[in-house]
């Protein structure tokens, strides 16, 4: 019994920092609707700033003073980021801002490396709080008790701020309907900056408070972000008490998981999230999302139509150039182009459900990697012929999408996104942990193409045919009645239902098709690289695709393909440089600010403006 109690206390202590960070993210999302990927970076900044301040300020006063100052400093950085990076793009399509926050992550990573160096910093001990107290004979670190004691005060302070002050009234009003708040004369820009600063400060405090239990290192931004999103989603996005309950729930369950199921450490919280979302689609205390009900942000989308003559000629010219490439280009250019086509097909498949279907998936890599693994497992274990194994890739990925989609499709918006993320984590952990079959982190190696395809030029044409074919096929589907039905379901589910379209079924089918096409890309990928590792299934792989789709332009048909091409080239060039993350981050932020409709979307707007009115172009 005493042991249980001690474990429970450990869980509560862990919940403290997690709750702080998660409540910040939840606040930011609730008011600004920004899915802030960079939230983990503010947590990391909090840790580094905290360590630095604690080195300077002596004693207990210095320690606690440093923590308070850290929050203020990180809050100020957050306000700066909001004003410079995010404010110009609030009118951009929904979720577009997450691309900008991704740029912020890269910039902060390199700046932190420049300022604090590469070595991990061990956090200073809280003065006078080293060692343990015995509770029912079990040792409990003193600092854990302090953390447990502090958390309710923070929760209370936040609760008071939100429910009892004028600022809180505004925040709640903005959470419900930010346009109405603006219409009533509230300065939205200041409100958003303030909330973003508060959210960042909370993350900074979280980073500083955990110092005596750990330290500061350059990987902690990505290491916490998964757990934070899980907590926010389980609690219900935008709900502070929900975030608190979820933080405690996840932390305590993790502690028991460590003891009774030590192998579960990788997936436990994602399993919990999946179960909660399947039972309660809006989290424990969340409400149904209202975003989008008042119409999409930004300019309404122009009706889609096939390319005009100029467009067709342009595409034909590009294809001819690609077909002639092996005649004059070096081998490496072919390889780079293969990479580009694979990524373009992957991005196009995500763009298909995201742009056309309105389903934002955060776990699309499950199908890309799933396809790659399906083919690789056949080759590795049964020596299947490459041609057969290759066909298995889209087939298996499609089946996987049918399975995952069955659970996910009933959800909408960010909750849909998070459930896809949870499932992709489950697929990842399967590949990571089931070593007898997948060899775990050691991956499956020596998966090379059949003899007749094993020259750079041959495999290039193979990729060109299937990759471009896949992209054109997806495009064709968008222009087919199925695509129209899918878009109808995206723009107005109720009206679509009224005209007899089974929206959920159409979406389910589109999800499976997108999965199969991602699997096709995965199949091409695995035979071009000769190996596959769980990295292809990581959250980061899903986000890569997400970012290029947004960067290219969600509301355009070529967005995914163009974004993928752009990103592959830019990365290939920038990673040769010393501070490539900083430059890449700044470049992403710059593109986002200059082209808030994505590259293709903004080029189109520019084109329209040069050519005169829209109607002239449509001819």
């Amino acid at each position, binding site marked *: 019994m005493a*042991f249980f109690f*001690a474990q429970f206390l*450990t*869980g509560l202590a*862990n919940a403290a920092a997690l709750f702080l960070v998660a409540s910040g993210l939840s606040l930011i999302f609730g008011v600004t609707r920004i899915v802030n990927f960079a939230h983990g970076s503010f947590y990391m900044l909090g840790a580094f700033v905290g360590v630095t301040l604690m080195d300077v300020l002596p004693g207990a006063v210095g320690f606690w003073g440093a923590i308070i100052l850290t929050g203020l400093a990180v809050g100020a950085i957050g306000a700066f980021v909001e*004003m*410079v990076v995010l*404010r*110009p793009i609030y009118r951009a399509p929904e979720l577009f801002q997450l691309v900008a926050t991704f740029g912020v992550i890269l910039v902060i990573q390199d700046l932190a490396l420049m300022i604090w160096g*590469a*070595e*991990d*910093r061990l956090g200073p001990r809280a003065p006078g709080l*080293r*060692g*343990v107290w015995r509770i029912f004979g079990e*040792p409990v*670190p003193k600092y*854990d008790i302090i953390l447990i004691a502090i958390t309710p005060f923070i929760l209370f302070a936040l609760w008071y701020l939100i429910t009892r002050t004028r600022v809180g009234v505004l925040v709640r009003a903005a959470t419900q309907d930010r346009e109405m708040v603006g219409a009533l004369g509230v300065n939205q820009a200041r409100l958003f900056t303030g909330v973003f600063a508060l959210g960042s400060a909370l993350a900074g405090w979280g980073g500083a408070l955990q110092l005596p*239990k*750990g*330290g500061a*290192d350059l*990987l902690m931004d990505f*290491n916490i972000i998964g*757990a934070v999103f899980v907590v926010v989603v389980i609690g219900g996005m935008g709900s502070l008490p929900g975030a608190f309950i979820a933080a405690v729930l996840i932390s305590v369950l*993790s*502690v028991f998981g*460590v*003891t009774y199921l030590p*192998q579960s*450490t*990788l997936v436990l919280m994602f399993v919990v999230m999946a179960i909660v979302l399947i039972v309660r689609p809006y989290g424990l205390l969340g409400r149904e999302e209202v975003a989008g009900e008042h119409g999409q942000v930004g300019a309404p989308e122009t009706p889609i139509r096939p390319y005009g003559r100029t467009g067709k000629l342009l595409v034909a010219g590009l294809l001819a150039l690609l077909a002639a490439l092996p005649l004059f280009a*070096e*081998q*490496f250019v072919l*390889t*780079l182009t293969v990479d580009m086509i694979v990524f373009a097909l992957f991005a196009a498949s995500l763009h298909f459900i995201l742009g056309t279907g309105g389903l934002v998936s955060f776990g699309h890599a499950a199908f890309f990697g799933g396809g790659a693994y399906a083919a690789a497992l056949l080759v590795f274990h049964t020596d299947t012929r490459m041609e057969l194994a290759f066909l298995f890739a889209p087939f298996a990925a499609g089946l996987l999408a049918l399975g995952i989609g069955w659970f996910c499709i009933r959800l909408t918006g960010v909750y849909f996104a998070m459930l896809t993320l949870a499932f992709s984590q489950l697929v990842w952990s399967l590949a*990571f942990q089931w*070593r007898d079959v997948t060899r*775990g*982190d*050691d*991956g499956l190696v*020596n998966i*090379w193409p059949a003899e007749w395809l094993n020259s750079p030029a041959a495999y290039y044409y193979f990729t060109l045919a299937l990759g471009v074919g896949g992209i054109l096929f997806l495009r064709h589907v968008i222009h087919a009645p199925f695509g129209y039905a899918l878009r109808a379901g995206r723009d107005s589910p109720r009206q679509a239902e009224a005209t007899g379209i089974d929206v959920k079924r159409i979406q389910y089918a589109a999800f499976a098709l997108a999965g199969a096409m991602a699997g096709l890309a995965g199949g091409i990928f695995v035979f071009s*690289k*000769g*190996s596959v*590792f769980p*990295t292809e299934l990581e959250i980061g792989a899903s986000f890569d695709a997400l970012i290029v789709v947004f960067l290219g332009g969600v509301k355009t048909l070529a967005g995914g393909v163009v974004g993928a091409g752009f990103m592959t080239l830019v990365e*290939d060039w920038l*990673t*040769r*440089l010393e*501070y490539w*993350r*900083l430059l890449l981050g*700044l470049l992403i932020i*710059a593109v986002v600010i200059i082209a808030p409709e994505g590259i293709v979307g903004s080029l189109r707007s520019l084109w329209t403006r040069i050519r005169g009115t829209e109607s002239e172009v449509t001819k």
Partner: protein
Amino acid sequence: MTFTRRTLLAMATALAPIAMLTPVAALAQDSIKIGEINHYKRLAAFAEPYKLGIELAVDEVNADGGVLGKPLEFIFRDDQGDPAEAIKIAEELMTREGAVMLTGTILSNVGLALSSFAAEKGYLYLASEPLADSLVWASGNPQTFRLRTSTWVQAAMLAEEAAKTDAVRYATIAPNYAYGQDAVAAFKENLLRLKPDVEFVAEQWPALFKIDAGAEVQALERAKPDAIYNVTFGTDLAKFVRDGGDRGLFDGRNVYGLLTGEPEYLDPLGDEAPEGWFVTGYPWYALADGTPGKTFVDAYMDTTGETPKIGSLVGYMTVLSIAAAIEKAGATDTASLIAAFEGLEIEDTPIGLLSYRELDNQSTMGAYVGTLAVEDGKGVMVDWSYKDPAPYMPTDDEIRAMRPAE
């Protein structure tokens, strides 16, 4: 605000040309180029000392007249820690940049991807730092050589020490991925062979760099082991040591720590380094004057102004190995280089004689083992010794059985 935005863009434009100059761009035409692929940003703490070690050795080699009369040159490329990216870069280095062979990587999965790629395309790959033993054993191939001491051997050294004690109840804690699992399996197998009555009463598997130290310590304590085998490293190790120390987990128990004594992991712990642990590591501060090891340490500290890490040593020896192989081959084509690496012997490296075994392409780099103590507010290894790996290796027949198609 327009101002800020403009400044930001101006900054980006201004920085770009400066940054473009940073990589080694314009080079002497007829240098011998080596493609070095690593995770310079993602694992900066490990990759930076490694790179400094390489640069030191390259300068020394070139000051001595280079190899085959030409300067040796390393092309450093960042793969973002992504195996697929690494393969793309490898191809570019070999087909476009004129590299004669490939080396690098710390992460095992990237190393395995490069190894498979090298075998398929007929390139030579020297796996300098990856920890996975399957590089030379289960997934070994003739194109891949490996420098870093094998995990099996280091675990066997700790198991040998553990077998000398009366402890029979063991608990293990290791990061939940391939390396951690292999390291635990190797320790178990060696210890059970030496001492069959040993019992493993708990196995803890925290997620890499996401340890819940309090919970792990409680779970270990609950199993009441006599001794603990630790494979965690980096931030996981720091949290584990801190929480375990506070809660008294290590009191009266023998602890065996794989890699715990390596400066990369020991230095950040400062005066909280866990005293009494028996570990593998790198006691550069205690090497005797006049030995090649000490000469390297002095040269490294002189040129970089930093204390060496084990990565520095590995980077340095990577260059020594490559330079020796090229000299021995007398040419830079892959076939000659592979032939030269088979059974290559290099005198007077910082660890003494270094050779590459013909049997499995593994180097004979051994490991330093010793006990941790705290001196002057820093963790150090005391009563240490350098152990040759040969006695700890599986038998030749076992290795032949593991290596496919040879």
